């Protein structure tokens, strides 16, 4: 991104195009907008680890979710590599999920302490993060329609009403945006898979 683009982004109070490391540095400097963006950026990931990989109840997942971000806030000065915030959050979330399952283990079979398939789910979530990063490069209208249809599970009717589009055009728009996303993914260098085992 050019310096001018960065300035424009900052003028709007947005940090969406900052790298993870740049965002962490700004959080450490005490910028409130940076912290809001950090929570926004990783909230889906932490939530998905809790409810998909470890299948926590909503109540337990909420406790772990808040604990993860509390610890992130308290320990952000101690991160050894700012760019590694995502695997660090994944590791922390995983550990807190296991602690939570272990705390309730009088009712749980032993194999729920590290659920079968958790590693596969975590790998899938890392791929999903890569797709979301590519999505963030697409035009806003594509980001919006793909997120509404796939991640928010909204119907054509709901999307049409929200975006003021005829519902008959939604499917073709989704298809065109998916094609753009596919192109972005094909041009994107493969991200190293974090070792969080």
């Amino acid at each position, binding site marked *: 991104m050019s310096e001018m683009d960065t300035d424009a982004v900052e003028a709007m109070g947005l940090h969406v195009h900052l790298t993870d490391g740049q965002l962490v540095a700004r959080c450490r400097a*005490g910028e*409130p907008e940076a*912290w*809001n963006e950090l*929570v*926004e950026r990783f*909230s*889906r*990931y*932490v*939530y*998905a680890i809790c409810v*998909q990989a470890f299948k926590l109840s909503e109540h337990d997942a*909420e406790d772990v*979710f*808040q*604990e993860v*971000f*509390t610890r992130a*806030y*308290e320990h952000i000065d101690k991160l050894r590599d700012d760019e590694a915030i995502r695997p660090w959050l994944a590791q922390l979330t995983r550990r807190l999920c296991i602690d939570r399952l272990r705390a309730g283990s009088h009712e749980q079979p032993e194999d729920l302490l590290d659920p079968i398939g958790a590693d596969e789910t975590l790998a*899938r*979530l890392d*791929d*999903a*993060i*890569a*797709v*979301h990063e590519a*999505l963030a490069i697409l035009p806003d209208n594509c980001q919006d329609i*793909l*997120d509404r249809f*796939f*991640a*928010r*599970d909204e119907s054509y009717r709901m999307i049409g009403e929200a975006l003021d589009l005829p519902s008959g055009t939604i499917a073709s728009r989704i*298809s065109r945006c*998916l*094609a753009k*996303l*596919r192109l972005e*993914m*094909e041009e994107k260098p*493969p991200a190293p898979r974090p070792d969080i085992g």
Partner: protein
Amino acid sequence: MTAFDEERLGDLLSALPPAPESWVRAAQEIPRTHSGVDEIVERAEADEEYRRYVVADPEAALAEADVVAHVDAVELLRRKLDK
């Protein structure tokens, strides 16, 4: 990730639904909670009477300091007072 067919892209987009908004907002409040708690602790260290009040009713002390008195904030306040 090696295959980019649109079905798989859709599947991966579906894998990250938004976290509940109230959870995200609460997490975004964490810095404000910490600074509010730090102010209470600093005052309590300088004023024994205020300290007794905070220990007796941490929720009220938090509310007075404009900090949402949720369980985590009360726990954080107790932990810092005990240090």
